[in-house]
């Protein structure tokens, strides 16, 4: 009996060794920050929002690459003006502004009592610092290309700033949504400080971003005390998290999953402010041939994509413009190419590919909608002899290989606008643009773009932008598909979610129903 005991004791010792490795280690972790407010409040006035991917490495709002970062940090940063849900601009950090007769001088009066999240008041110096930072072109293209026309930013007094331009531009104001940051603060990458209704608290890579209500916010305060953004990269896990109650709100939900949701949620439907397309690398063969690109357009049954991958939700587009940008959207372009495999084959034969060819589609694996779309496209292209290999990649790889590195053939993704103007959508396709990841090169387009951005007459400018859209459509720059429906799952009991014609998520109006 004694030996039996020894044997089991030894086994137990082995287990202990395993367990102490675990228990001892976790004790070291306990002093991590603990949030006192959650203990104090009887009912936690906080929610968890599911997002599909991690934000940019840097949270600095001027260096944002990913739409997902802008979407979250919209709650933290504000510009002199800020967008409203109906697509207008409303003064934010500026209380008021005047524009000179020649449209070259903007004078902003700063709002009283606007404070940064670190408690410092916003001064004219901060505004000058922030705008100059975005306009700095000493290292190539400035952070905000539209700021190239700024001649000077002047501090008139503590509360007054003037910006003078080299040429008039009626879109300039739209870009003044660029975040105002405290002058000289160099921690924006990891500990961003802005003036928005929420302040940044913490970030755990690949896991969470935590925001808390900013008590000294100048405007209508946020209803919620705390918002945790939970990164759930796997769409299936996201679904499970919604079902199980780990997530209270989640936008851009795939329709198949939205339809599966339980009674705990209701769905708010909007239109996503982006253009989903098969973006094509115009610089590589065979896609450098306009006939091949047009053939792809004819071989695409867009309605089937919407039916199969989006359960019928979504509105067709024909160029790089989405319907919620109102006056800039040209509905007539939607039907530039209608599904016609015979025509597609004809064009392919003309281009020298009568039997089709092999191509790759690189898709970000964390966006099931895009992966699904790619699968449908691959199936559709078989009809014209094109063999598609789908390469799913992590979002970070997509950014570095496709968007920045431009090492790809085609990709399915959605492209959004950073400001509420046509320019924000169309600028990237001019041959000089740093973010022209499809390598579109068209002299007529470049010329139109120069004309458009220097034009001050609104109607004329809109017409020019529409011509640019038509240029993209006629030359089949990309295989345009749709502006997807934005389905937002909201837990019952929460209300106040608002859509913007921009890729942002405003949480300041979300609240628990009384």
């Amino acid at each position, binding site marked *: *009996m004694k*030996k*039996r005991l020894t*044997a089991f004791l*030894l*086994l137990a*010792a*082995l*287990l202990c*060794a*395993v*367990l102490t*490795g*675990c228990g001892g*280690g*976790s004790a070291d*972790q*306990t002093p*991590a920050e*603990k949030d006192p407010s959650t203990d104090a409040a009887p009912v936690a006035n906080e929610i*968890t929002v599911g997002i599909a991917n*991690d934000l940019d*490495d*840097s949270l600095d709002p001027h260096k944002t690459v990913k739409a997902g970062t802008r979407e979250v940090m919209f709650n933290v940063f504000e510009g002199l003006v800020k967008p409203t849900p109906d697509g207008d601009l409303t003064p934010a950090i500026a209380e008021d502004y005047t524009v000179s007769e020649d449209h070259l001088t903007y004078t902003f009066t700063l709002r009283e009592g606007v404070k940064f999240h670190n408690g410092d008041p916003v001064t004219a110096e901060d505004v000058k610092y922030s705008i100059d930072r975005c306009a700095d072109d000493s290292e190539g293209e400035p952070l905000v290309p539209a700021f190239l026309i700024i001649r000077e930013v002047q501090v008139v007094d503590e509360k007054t700033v003037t910006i003078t331009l080299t040429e008039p531009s009626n879109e300039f104001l739209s870009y003044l949504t660029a975040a105002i940051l405290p002058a000289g603060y160099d921690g924006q990458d990891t500990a961003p400080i802005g003036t928005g209704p929420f302040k940044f608290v913490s970030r*755990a*890579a*690949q*896991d969470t971003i935590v925001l808390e209500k900013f008590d000294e916010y100048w405007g209508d305060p946020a209803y919620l005390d705390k918002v945790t953004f*939970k990164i*759930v*990269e*796997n769409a299936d*896990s*996201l679904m*499970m*998290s919604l*079902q*199980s*109650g*780990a*997530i209270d709100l989640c936008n851009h939900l795939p329709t198949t999953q939205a339809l599966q949701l339980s009674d705990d949620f209701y769905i708010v439907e909007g239109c996503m402010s982006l253009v989903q397309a098969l973006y094509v690398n115009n610089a590589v063969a065979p896609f450098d041939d306009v006939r091949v690109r047009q053939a792809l357009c004819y071989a695409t049954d867009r309605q089937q994509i919407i039916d199969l991958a989006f359960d019928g939700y979504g509105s067709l587009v024909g160029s790089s413009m989405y319907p919620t940008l109102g006056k800039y959207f040209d509905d007539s372009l939607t039907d530039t190419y209608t599904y016609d495999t015979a025509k597609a084959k004809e064009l392919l034969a003309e281009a020298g590919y009568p039997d089709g060819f092999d191509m790759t589609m690189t898709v970000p*694996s964390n966006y099931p909608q895009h992966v699904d779309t790619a699968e449908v496209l691959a199936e559709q292209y078989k009809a014209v002899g094109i063999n598609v290999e789908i390469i799913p*990649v*992590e979002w*970070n*790889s997509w950014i*570095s290989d496709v968007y*920045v*590195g431009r090492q790809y053939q085609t990709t399915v993704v959605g492209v959004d606008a950073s400001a509420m103007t046509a320019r924000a959508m169309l600028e990237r396709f001019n041959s000089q643009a740093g973010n022209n990841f499809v390598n579109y090169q068209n002299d007529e387009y470049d010329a139109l773009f120069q004309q458009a951005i220097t034009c001050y007459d609104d109607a004329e400018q809109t017409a020019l932008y529409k011509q640019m859209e038509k240029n993209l459509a006629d030359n089949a720059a990309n295989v345009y598909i749709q502006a997807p429906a934005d389905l937002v799952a909201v837990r019952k009991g929460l209300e106040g979610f608002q859509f913007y014609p921009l890729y942002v998520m405003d949480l300041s109006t979300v609240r628990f129903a009384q």
Partner: protein
Amino acid sequence: MKYAAKRVAMLLLTMVIVSLLAFVAFDLISGDPATAMLGTEATPEKVAALREQLGLNRPLMVRYGEWLLGFFTGDLGMSYSYRQPVWDLIAPKVLVTLCLSGLTFLLIVAVSIPLGLRSARQSGGVLGSVRTLVNQLCMAVPPFFTGILLSYLFSTVLRWFVHGQFPGLDKDLGGSLKYLFFASLALAIPRVAMTVRMLRSTVQGEMRKDYVRTAISRGNDRGGVLYQHVLKNALVPVVTFLAQTMAEIVASSIVVEQVFGIPGLGRMLVASISNRDYPTVQAIVVILAFWVVLAGTVADLINQRIDPRLRLGGAS
């Protein structure tokens, strides 16, 4: 004690070799980290400056030495994709994976040892065949499939835990362990089946040996013989097998973490592989390898205690 010292020396040597292999392999394939970090902003001058700053101009062995020391000082370089120190990224995740593995291991031992001993005493018959079938079936179920079924059952139907909301070990230890328990169930099932089978055949093999037959023919009762002699001798291969199990658990947990949405090393590893974030992959691989080698060493040390006749290299 001499044995233990030798064994530990061997452990250290193995670890050095494993880490060296990992370091050299990833150093060769990862290309120039400076270019990778700069991306499109790379100019020859900037690359040269960053190389200097990162110390990439020094010989491979010097860099390896520094990196190895990093496991003690917490400096394992920077992750390409997160621009954060690798150590900060993985330190919290190591604990999660360790806890999941530990819990699974406990579960396997607690269930399979009594079951295995019981099944060793009975043999043959219809019951035996049924047992073998069930055993084979359990071994055939991949943990990620069980995981899907279990997470649906316990999370969506019974609501015993919230899928996707891992509380975090530092915030709620009890809740976290409960969450991990469901994942460890999925991990344990095929492993329990294998351990029971292994235990049964070892014990039965031992029972057939001459000394046992003699003892029984002398009139000792079977149970007594089983516990006094057989178990001791059977324990050695079982401990070795359990060490192997520990290693396999770590590997399977990579997949199960994905199923249950547990923020452990496995998910980090998969994401880093896809992102080609080599510094992170390198560190995780070496940590997992250390864990495997350590389990083997502990098993050998225990075996030597059970049966002091064992010598180095003769343990398995």
